[in-house]
């Protein structure tokens, strides 16, 4: 149960949501924008987070978009992870997002909630990080702003009072690409990742990899991508070098030690490279 009372609001427009937030703040309240609630509610139960008003964004049409719009493939921040899998508009996104949590929880977790989670994994971001053109549409006081998703993990990506409306990628880029996405866990099918690796192979044969679970945030590394794309070397060799040249050290936690994460990442990368280059 929540140990404190909250006010619940469900605005129908972006404007209404922004105004509501401002008004509540002026009223010295602590509002939060609300998607699926899996994180806010579970943390609030433990009193790890405090708020006294929630602004549920899921009734706003722009937050629920799911489909093509011109060149773009758009995904509303309020879509459930199960919506993404059911629609399967972008198989790489499905492959990654459909391995988050369990099915019941994916029926609650929203795309926006996962992308902006305080839990370090945020695996739904990996497909977007692998694209040249991936944008977030953010509702701000000054209207809708588009921001590159490459900056997702920076602290100032979304400022207080702003909220994520949707994310989008170029349809041609997203769909004309070979990919693998693999979530590796300590032991269980349903668990946080030791490491989740999403890899794309473009028409020119170049490889890019995005990682979640390796560090406290999801990332891609151009140095790693460069190593992976060196087809002159064996998959195993490239995987070894990639792991040796990661931009940050691997985490060490109860899911696994640093060395084991390296071991798992290495064989996973090697397997994926072999598969993608055999296709």
């Amino acid at each position, binding site marked *: *149960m*929540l*140990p*404190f*009372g909250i006010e619940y609001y469900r605005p129908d427009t972006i404007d209404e949501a922004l105004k509501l937030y401002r008004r509540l703040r002026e009223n010295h309240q602590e509002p939060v924008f609300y998607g699926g609630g899996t994180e806010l509610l579970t943390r609030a*139960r*433990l*009193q790890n987070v405090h708020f006294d008003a929630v602004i549920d964004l899921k009734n706003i049409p722009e937050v629920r978009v799911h489909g093509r719009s011109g060149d773009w493939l758009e995904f509303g921040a309020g879509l459930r992870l199960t919506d993404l899998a059911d629609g399967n508009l972008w198989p790489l996104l499905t492959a990654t997002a459909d391995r988050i949590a*369990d099915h019941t929880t994916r029926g609650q977790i929203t795309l926006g909630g996962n992308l902006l989670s305080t839990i370090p994994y945020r695996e739904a971001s990996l497909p977007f990080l692998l694209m040249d053109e991936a944008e977030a549409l953010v509702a701000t006081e000054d209207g809708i702003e588009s921001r590159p998703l490459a900056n997702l993990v920076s602290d100032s990506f979304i400022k207080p009072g702003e909220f994520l409306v949707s994310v989008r990628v170029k349809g041609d880029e997203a769909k004309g690409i070979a990919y693998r996405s693999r979530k590796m866990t*300590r*032991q*269980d*099918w*349903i*668990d*946080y990742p030791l490491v989740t690796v999403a890899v794309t192979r473009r028409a020119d044969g170049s490889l890019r990899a995005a990682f979640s679970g390796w560090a406290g945030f999801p990332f891609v590394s151009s140095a790693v991508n460069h190593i992976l794309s060196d087809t002159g070397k064996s998959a195993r060799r490239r995987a070894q070098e990639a792991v040796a040249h990661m931009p940050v050290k691997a985490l060490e936690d*109860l899911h*696994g*030690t640093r060395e*084991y994460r390296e*071991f*798992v990442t290495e*064989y996973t990368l090697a397997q994926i490279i072999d598969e993608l280059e055999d296709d």
Partner: protein
Amino acid sequence: MKIIGTSVPRKEAPNKVTGRARYANDINVPGTFHAVMVPARQAHAQIIAIDTDEAKKVPGVKAVITGKDLSVLSGDVMEDRPPLARDKVRYWGEPIALVVARDEAAARRAAGLVQARYQPLPVINSIQDALDKKAALVHQQNGSYTVATPPVYPKKHSNIADEANVTKGDMDKAWKDSDVKVKVHVSLPQIDHAAMEPRIAKAEILADGRVLIHASTQAPFEVQKLLAKYFKLNPGQISVTAPLVGGAFGGKAGVQLEILAYVASKAVGGQMVKIVNTREDDLATSPLGMGFEADIALGASQDGRIKAAEMRFFMDIGAYADSAPRIARAIAAQCTGPYAVPNVHTDVYCVYTNHTYTTAWRGFGHMPMTFAVERAMDELAEALKMDPLDLRELNAIRPHDVTPTKARLTRSNLGDLPKALTHMRQLIGWNGGRVEALGPGRVRVQGVAAFWKTSSSPPNAVSGALITMNSDGSVNLSIGAVEFGPGTKTTAAQILAEQLRIPLDRVFIHEDVNTQVDPEHWKTVASLSTYMVGRAVLDAAKDLMTQMLMVAASVLKCSPDDLDYGDEKIYVRDDPSIYLDFKDLALGYKYQEGDSIGGQLMGRGKFMIRHLNLLDQQTGHGRPGPAWTVGVQAVEVEYDQNTHQYRILKAATVIDAGKVLNPAIASGQVMGGMNMGLGVASREGIFYDSDGRLLNNQLRLYKLMRMGEQPKQYLVEFIETPQVDSAFGARPIGEHAVLAIGAALANALSRAANVSLNMLPITPEAIWRARRAR
């Protein structure tokens, strides 16, 4: 009428599957207050001050209690545990204060505002830390606590809460006679019971002084006795009700929340107060299953006969003793596993640490003990170049052997292990333990392990049964054993129906246990309910029938010996057309003229354990239980030598059930046990950081086996060697399937990965590390 041996559904099944079954937290009285515990956020520290001022200001808060307000020390063997930490905290999660409020939200808010200041002390974070000569003491007072239930031998100025020993034969000679020796060191983390229903207790003190407790407990009669003792009440004043329990696994045999609920109710003038564990509380504050280390040395002659067993077991009991001394004796008494070993020296130590305290966990210490012994057995088989199953068969304990504590074994009190081993060969398709290549880096392998267990119950454990008759001739049955899943009530009803020769649906069994109306049953633990309750029900059925036959005899003007019964009738044996219906006798027989005899018929039955004794302090000799259940378990796994990932294809158990009373429930119980044991073996374990903080106090981090992760196939086979002093010959089988399956997995994977895997859980990382350390 044949009810014994048939797969009747559980009595409570319709209510459970429709969500109508009522558990302790489903019955709520308006106006009930809520109590919330404030957990320590240090593992070992002196308490300097606890500031409750801010908490008391929260609207709705009625009382904030700290350890200073209580003088009680609790513990069913040794009284070492303050219900709320006093002077110092000994584990992360230990309750330091209790907030009582009008509603749960207020209590939780206030609990978050209780501030404690600590002086940190060195954290005893492992068995090794605790045994270090310079170790800080978890209990300065160790050795001077009141002993509630002897025996227990604490060692002053140390972290050893208790020590149990067993010696048999001549070790020096045994080692000389051994051609082959193996040594194994095993290490297992603490684990959780992870019952679906977290623990809960409610307490109310009525104006007339009566104390009403409702709790999710395996031991309502123990709750009654201990509360009376701690708070100087008469046991009769205290009424404890245990409704259906949503899983227990030993974790609800201890008494913790009941004490706090009583204290809370007392602080608010006797109002009903409820205390319900969150999952976090259930994992970090309420007791766990112990952590464990062992050094096993086995010696055998060249032909494979075991000559010597020298063993040291160390239990990480956490911060308080609870049942650990009893568990230590259970381990000592069965320390060899189900094998005839002439020469034994075993020491078992209960070691205090700054970990969450522990209590019974399904198998009562036999699971970790079996893991250690069965790993050593496989190492011995390897050293002897013997088939691991052959080695077990050669050494299997048999009637006329004696146990490590010199208890005599008979065909009745010991199941037939050699037969179980033979059946396992068929059931799993035993291939001798060979590693079979499946493809590049992929192998398939089988592993086997055997178990035995007795009850380790107190020598004066009692049980009872009461039968009353309804006007239609049906019967009500009342027993003191709690229903937490294994079909205890249904089994009792089956036994009664069989004895009275009536359909099962004519037996109505009291689902709850209430200490005021139900006859005493020691505790619903140790897989003993079928044995103890069964005997009490037989006794009560006999009592009822004697009375019914007496009344019928006088009505029918004959001797009771002329009568027989069946189909809810009592009839003259040589002329069944002369009969009375049960319903004509149930509430007394009424003659046509109206005058009546007999009154309501009631059957009383009782049972008391016999011929058990406490183990001798020096030699450990004694008789720890009425009978030993034996069995063998095996797995077949597929293992990837490159990634170290594996998949359990088959898990199999052959167990000597004596007599299977209900095949569907019995197989379910065995499959559930395998699942639980494999979960422990493959993923479970409590993690502490270097400061003793418990890191995985949620089920998202304390991993249990989920649907889809279980073995592809569960295989269960029963053999039936009757235990002649038990109802219909049935043996205890409740806990047993958890005991050896983890060892079987470790044995299989050790061969597959070609490295000794002597620790749990066996994750791919654990295998990878073991191989790297080689």
